[in-house]
């Protein structure tokens, strides 16, 4: 009788645990799906292909942990690799400690260069640098006016000349900066297509003339497959130090960043998040990785499961559940884990063997705070043996946790019911009703 039960449990657990190791066969569906996800996110065709191949080579043969399937595990590995690939080097910009810091800003038309120049000036001004903006877009109608308008909003002077000569503008601008005690210049250049030879020659000349402390390639996060071509061409001419990803306040998936990162290997240094000048942020590779893979789905769940779910603890919990020895002490541990992970429902879903069964359970996460406070006010003895919780003890607990005696009573009662349900579940070998009866309020 007893053996039959444990066998039953073992079987369900095995199923949830998946198939032991990652093999080409058990991850192929997932890989196909991920390729599609990457392409939909505008990751370049070749980049997506290579990336998936490399990652899956690395992953084959890996052990599958309990509580997740091979598909979930490979997704998680891809997510991690993506984060590593997008991240990497430090994202700060170099400043020239002694002399003049020169920052050159380049990119395609309309990518957000001028706005970024404004934002960066604003940010650097906060560290008390004396900044001069140089308006080297001498082509686009009112480009200089645009920079001047931005400059005046943040009290930063803009250097320009009346002649339509970008190289000369830059040369005179730098002279002007040196003569007038500026220690930082930011050069806004005209947008240009990488196939425009004349304009690319111009940017090479500027680069050579300035030999900038830092040069940045500004790219629209909505860019599609062609991102690899422009990023490459600009890199050949300018050999820029970093990438600025703009318009991330939109809802594009931003896969172009991965394409560029893998093709030119330069770090993403800033994120531009809006039209106003205070929306410049440093870059978080993990956020972009989940954005590329599609927010909020498997990735984050698997991620959290692995981060916070200790295999050993899980085993102990299973054992306790099975032997009906789950006490307030265990409960508190779970709540702490839950709080790290954000949601009770998601945690319960990760407990081996419970998985899908809790999907329908309605659980109020906010109530957890109260529950935790109550359990925290119990002594260890009380937690392990709730039976000793008499009226006086309950009163003390209510006071200590800032809750009412009714709250305490309710929790103890529900916990008792839960234990009963557990023993019932163990007898029946199913966990369905357990969590439906778990109400906190």
């Amino acid at each position, binding site marked *: 009788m007893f053996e039959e039960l444990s066998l039953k449990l073992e079987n369900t657990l095995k199923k949830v645990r998946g198939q032991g190791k990652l093999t080409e066969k058990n991850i192929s569906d997932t890989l196909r799906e991920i390729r*599609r996800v990457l*392409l*939909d*996110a*505008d990751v*370049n*065709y*070749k980049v997506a292909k290579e990336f998936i191949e490399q990652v899956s080579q690395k992953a084959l043969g890996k052990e599958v942990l309990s509580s997740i399937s091979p598909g979930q595990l490979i997704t998680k590995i891809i997510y991690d690799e993506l984060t590593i690939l997008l991240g990497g080097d430090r994202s700060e910009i170099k400043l020239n400690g002694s002399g003049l810091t020169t920052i050159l800003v380049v990119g*395609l*038309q*309309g*990518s*957000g260069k*001028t706005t970024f120049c404004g934002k960066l000036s604003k940010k650097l001004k906060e560290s008390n640098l004396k900044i001069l903006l140089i308006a080297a877009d001498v*082509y*686009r*109608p*009112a*480009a200089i*006016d*645009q*920079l*001047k*308008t*931005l400059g005046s*909003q943040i009290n930063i002077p803009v250097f320009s000349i009346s002649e339509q000569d970008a190289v000369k503008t830059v040369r005179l601008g730098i002279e002007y900066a040196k003569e007038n005690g500026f220690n930082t210049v930011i050069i806004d250049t005209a947008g240009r*297509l*990488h*196939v425009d030879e004349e304009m690319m020659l111009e940017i090479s000349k500027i680069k050579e003339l300035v030999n900038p402390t830092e040069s940045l390639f500004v790219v*629209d996060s*909505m*860019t*599609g*497959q*062609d*991102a690899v*071509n*422009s990023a490459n061409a600009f890199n050949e001419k300018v050999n820029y130090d970093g990438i600025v990803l703009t*318009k991330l*306040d*939109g*809802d*594009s*998936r931003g*896969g*172009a960043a991965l394409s560029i990162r893998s093709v030119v290997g330069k770090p993403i240094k800033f994120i531009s998040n809006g*039209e106003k000048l205070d929306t410049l942020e440093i870059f978080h590779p993990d956020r972009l990785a989940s954005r590329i893979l599609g927010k909020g789905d498997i990735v984050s769940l698997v991620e959290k499961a692995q981060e916070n779910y200790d295999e050993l603890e899980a085993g102990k919990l299973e054992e306790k559940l099975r032997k009906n020895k789950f006490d307030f002490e265990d409960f508190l541990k779970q709540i702490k884990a839950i709080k790290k992970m954000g949601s009770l429902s998601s945690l319960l879903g990760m407990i081996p063997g419970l998985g899908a069964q809790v999907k329908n359970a309605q659980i109020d996460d906010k109530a957890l705070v109260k529950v935790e406070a109550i359990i925290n006010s119990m002594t260890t003895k009380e937690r392990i043996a709730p039976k000793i919780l008499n009226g006086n003890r309950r009163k003390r607990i209510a006071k200590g946790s800032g809750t009412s005696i009714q709250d305490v009573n309710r929790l103890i009662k529900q916990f008792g019911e839960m234990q009963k349900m557990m023993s019932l579940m163990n007898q029946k070998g199913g966990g369905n009703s357990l969590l439906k009866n778990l109400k906190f309020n």
Partner: protein
Amino acid sequence: MVMFNNFNFSKLKEGLTKTRDKIVNTITETISGKAVIDDKTLDEIEEILITSDIGYDTATNIIERTKISLKSDKDRSGLNILGTVKKELISIFDYMQIDGEEEKINKSKPYIILVVGINGVGKTTTIGKLAHNYKKAGLKVIIGSADTFRAAANEQLDIWAQRAGVEIMQKKQGTDPSSVAFDTIRKAIKEKYDIVLIDTAGRLHNKSYLMEELSKIKRVINKVLPNAPNETFLVLDGNTGQNALVQATEFSKVTDITGLIVTKLDGTAKGGVVFQISAKQKIPVKYIGIGEGIDDLQTFNPEQFVKAIFDI
């Protein structure tokens, strides 16, 4: 077509030759001496399609349909495979009618054209080009500068109006954009203008307050003239990937987009995402932008557009 028949096509050609080499190579590799449809050829075609931003689903669809139509076809040379793919692609635009634009304009003067899109796609530049072309066609044109947000938007548009030699109506930065639209149309009615072009500030489609502002502009225009705007053009950056589809969907929710304009096709980007938009939303592509000059706007031509993706 009538309005823009005297365009200079050499620029597009020039733009294309720069990218043609790469495509030629891809295709010769693809087709050299192969008489059967093997997966490799189809994979290579898939790559060309996907790297043109056509999108995974559309690319796969096209390839599936190609396979089917080639089943009954004895000639399965690479060229024929390509020909079939091209035909499939062109047929996506079949629903588009080359309508008598001139008649439409003559029927409802002033003819109000509202130009919308996200930030930096090329709205203002396109307005300048459109103004120039309408003017050349002998029409009396006024531009309303309803981008009252971006730094120096007024100055930029003013330069374009001067270049095109047309009238412009502007207000101070920060003014309610719908009031600019309102005043421009009132003036156009009073002074018998034929064409009113309304420029708007770039806005991301996921910012509801900005989209609400746009629908207000539209309502106000509609109050002055019941059938207006007669056209609402959504400008898309040819470099944009799959997000363009979302842009088309979201902008359609607040304004009736009557046409698409795809810009910056003078680079190496192909703008292939419009196939999806066309297939799903049936919004015709009207013009393409192929440079920053005033003459760099062309009437959209499906055959040429598809050719540009594959041209040998």
